[in-house]
């Protein structure tokens, strides 16, 4: 976030000269895409978890859905009983969407392992639940940063002292922001977010705050950078954004110890289990 803001004057100098052009983009081997962000509303006794999968094609092409042979989440630290097994099996509810319902407590403690099979290959990821803090207040502002048409929202939340926190804000309309508490440890912190457009009066938005560990924070940071505005000569080098879902097929610790010699052995996307708070705002 900081970098983008610090480069604002540059953005001004560049703004007026953008146009849409035709570009032939190259294509690569299709890769599995896994969106397995499990958002936990702690006030609810059970959670509906939903995982979305797809395949990559070219940048300007469609994202084909795909189907999985199996997809499960296991709490490896939980005692498994017949009545309450420690593995949750997700089932396809719509093409490319796999869902299941489970008690909240299943998610909030212990190591969670995510496994899936696709086209005969096994993928794996693990995580644990990351809590967050509620949004204390959300207000519409009248300031501007990018230009006259901006829409400002002022967000206030209180950081937890003595804990290293990473936060991800979903500002709706596919706009996200990441921040970490180094410079406001334990403080009540208020900041403004600017939508680079005029949101018409009466329009509603749902603003969400998610917890994150450092890995997920870094991941979201890279996604925001690559999915959003890159600013000319001040763009950072593009790179494959690797998440935490990787291919474990054939990892036998006999011949294959790691994925160093097979860099294509991963899936795009991320598996994370995070606490979520939401707030509504009307512009």
């Amino acid at each position, binding site marked *: 976030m*900081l970098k983008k803001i610090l480069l604002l*004057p540059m953005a*001004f100098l560049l703004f007026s000269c953008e146009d849409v052009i035709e570009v032939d983009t190259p294509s690569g081997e299709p890769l599995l895409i896994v969106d397995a962000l499990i958002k936990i509303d702690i006030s609810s006794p059970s959670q509906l978890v939903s995982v979305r999968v797809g395949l990559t094609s070219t940048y300007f092409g469609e994202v084909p859905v795909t189907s999985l042979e199996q997809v499960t989440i296991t709490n490896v630290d939980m005692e498994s009983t017949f009545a309450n097994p420690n593995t949750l099996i997700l089932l396809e509810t719509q093409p490319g969407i796999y869902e299941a319902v489970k008690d909240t407590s299943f998610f909030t403690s212990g190591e969670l392992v995510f496994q899936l099979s696709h086209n005969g290959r096994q993928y794996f990821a693990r995580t644990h639940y990351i809590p967050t803090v509620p949004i204390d207040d959300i207000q519409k502002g009248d300031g501007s*940063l990018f230009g006259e048409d901006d829409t*400002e929202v002022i967000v206030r939340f209180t950081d937890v002292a003595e804990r290293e926190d990473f936060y991800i804000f979903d500002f709706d309309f596919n706009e996200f922001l990441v921040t970490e508490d180094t410079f406001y440890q334990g403080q009540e912190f208020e900041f*403004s977010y600017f939508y680079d457009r005029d949101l018409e009066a009466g329009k509603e938005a749902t603003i969400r705050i998610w917890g994150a560990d450092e890995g997920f924070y870094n991941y979201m940071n890279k996604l925001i950078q690559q999915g959003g505005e890159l600013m000319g000569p001040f763009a*950072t080098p*593009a790179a494959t954004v690797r998440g935490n879902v990787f291919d474990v097929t054939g990892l036998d610790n006999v011949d294959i110890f790691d994925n160093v010699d097979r860099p294509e052995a991963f899936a795009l996307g991320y598996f994370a289990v995070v606490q979520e708070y939401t707030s509504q705002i009307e512009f």
Partner: protein
Amino acid sequence: MLSFLRVLSCILCLLLTSPTIAQQKFTLSGSVTEAASNETLIGVTIVVPELKTGVTTNEYGFYSLTLPEGQYTLRISYLGYQDVVNSITFDSDQKINFKLAELVEQLEEVVVSDDLKRIDIREPQMSVSTLDIRTIKKIPVVLGEADVIKALLLLPGITNAGEGASGFNVRGGSVDQNLILLDEATIFNASHLFGFFSVFNPDAIKDIKLFKGGIPSRYGGRVSSVLEIFQKEGNSNEFRMSGGIGAVASRLLAEGPIVKDRAAFLVGGRASYAHLFLPLFDNDNSAYFFDLNTKLNYRINEKNNIFLSGYFGRDVFSISESFQNTYGNSVFNFRWNHLFSDKLFTNLSLIYSDYYYGLELDFVGFRWNSGIQNFNLKYDLKHYVGEDLQINYGLNNIYYRFNPGKIEPNDADSGILAEQLIQKYANESAAYIDVQQNVTDHLSVEYGLRLSHFIRLGQDEINVYENNEPVFFDPFLLIYQEADPIGIVTPGRSESLATFTNLEPRISASFAFGPDTSVKASYTRLTQYLHLLSNTSSPTPLDVWTPSGPFVKPQLLDQYALGYFRNFSDDAYTLETEVFYKDIQNRIDYIDGANLIANNAIEQVILNGHARAYGLEILLRKNDGRLQGWLAYTLSRSEQRTPGRTPKSDNGRSNMETGINLGEWYFTPYDKTHDIALFGSFELNKKWDFNANFIFQTGQPTNYPIGQFEFQGLTVPYYGLRNKERLPDYHRFDIGATLTPKEKEGRKWRSEWVFSIYNLYSRRNAASINFRQNQDTGVNEAIRTSIFGIIPAVTYNFKF
């Protein structure tokens, strides 16, 4: 150290055993100045045709020539000035100060036959780019603001990462690998307005020299190039003013004597007009820059001169009340020239320079500032031993203080906590010797050695890591991550965290095949101890410098260059061709998604990589007649890579890593396969001259996505290996004209109008192509950002 002394003694042996003829010799020394202003002239050649030898004046206008007894002709010549030919009898040591008169004031004729940029065939120095400040002022540039760095980009081997990019890249090197010296003081950021203009006010500049290779041993500390700029000293003859009114900025410069012929001052200022440049801004916002150049010199006596010089420049941006940003360089230095004898010239410099970056963000509630300061003490001796031998040697010590950032709440309600990121300290010292020797009538060599020593001094806190590895590699996810420190130590400021000593040999040789043709070759080793933390295509003003230390190694360069040089058609044309190969070890690279700002543990995101560049450069100049100009062509490649670190045994098996970009070579953002620049200047008559540029460059490397994916509704382009694609080729054509109205009799006022049209055919050159989802339609788009369309401009310059 011991080996250094051994080499030194070898050099001395070599010198002492060179054949001496028992004939009495006498020394002629003095300075060369411009007649009208008493301004000393740098690089004036003084040739003795009878002996086929000569000398050039140094940075302070001093020369010394020792010849056997006899009568000789001296021909003193300097570009743009009338030659002086003198017959001098060497029968005693003498002091003669020559004064040269500017050609334009003397000649009615337009065609100037003596104004020839002849290449010095015999001089071993190669890979040097020079541009006359008058040529720089003629080159059509964007918005008419004459610019030293933009002019240099028209010469071979010098590029930048595109329009609006800051700094310049020399022979495939990065921007932070250029040592930029203004009156011997280091300038850390040479750009105004994010790179649209350079910080050097052309009115205040006397001399510009860019070393791309064959860098003499008196320079060190950066691995790509040395850009040495000297400011004018000030007119000690009469009070003069000059200035200009341009589309972006206006300039005013005053100079004059304090004590006639002995002491002079110079004050120059330049400022931009905020509201005209960025019409997007309403009254709440502004963006402007200014520079202030000051200089005082005092000629105490024939043997002692002192100079005080200063530079202060700032860029200021503010966007309503939410965003305020200030940055710039300041430089102050004191220099003392002392002549120990007519053969031994010395200069002592005391230099302070800093770079400051400050920012206030009201909507987040913080104030931020960062910067770098350095104190530099330099002592340089130039020993004019004999007609065929000159030895330069000296010492240099620089103390650095790095402030990576200080964050403060900007008001009482802000949730931001004040924090000073850990400041870093270092000391760099060097000793050098450089010998210029004419071995035979055909062979001249320059060889030298620089011994550099760097101490990373203690700081308040430093992290300790397991296995001393601050970067952790996940062998399953194949990503580099920040390792968690296992402890923190608090070394005192007097302790050293790391020390580095490097021996940097330099050698260049020239072999002349006749009066007009020579072949030159050089080898250069250079060490760079400071690194600009920047993972963008071109540096930004907020990037901070960091010293080498326990986790960051100094960059080491080896450069080889070979060239063929020729003057032909009675010096009307000159041809310079060179090939070069560069190899840089320990070029720092960053893990994907590295955050470089406000990072107290920068070692956690850095890996040591490798860079290389090679190419061919051709420069053909036409120096004669009404039409003058040059054609520059560069064919080159610039790449870097960061392989996985050395596998080490852990649990009985080796840990492999993929490296950054899977350890493969990738193009740097300033790799341009073909780079062609054509500049022509046509002098129609005394009133009008016309200038034009044409530039063609292979599009710079970039990335196109090989696919897309969606995560939580965010559509993200998915990229393969780095910089596999290229932007469309870059080309543009600029024209300019200078109108010099007829001087009025008896009036000192002289003026000129400079008209220019940048990008005449309004090519929309892509500065970048970005991929994103349209917010309204949800469709993926490729967005071309182009910076300058056709831009006409008028500048009015005057002097009196």
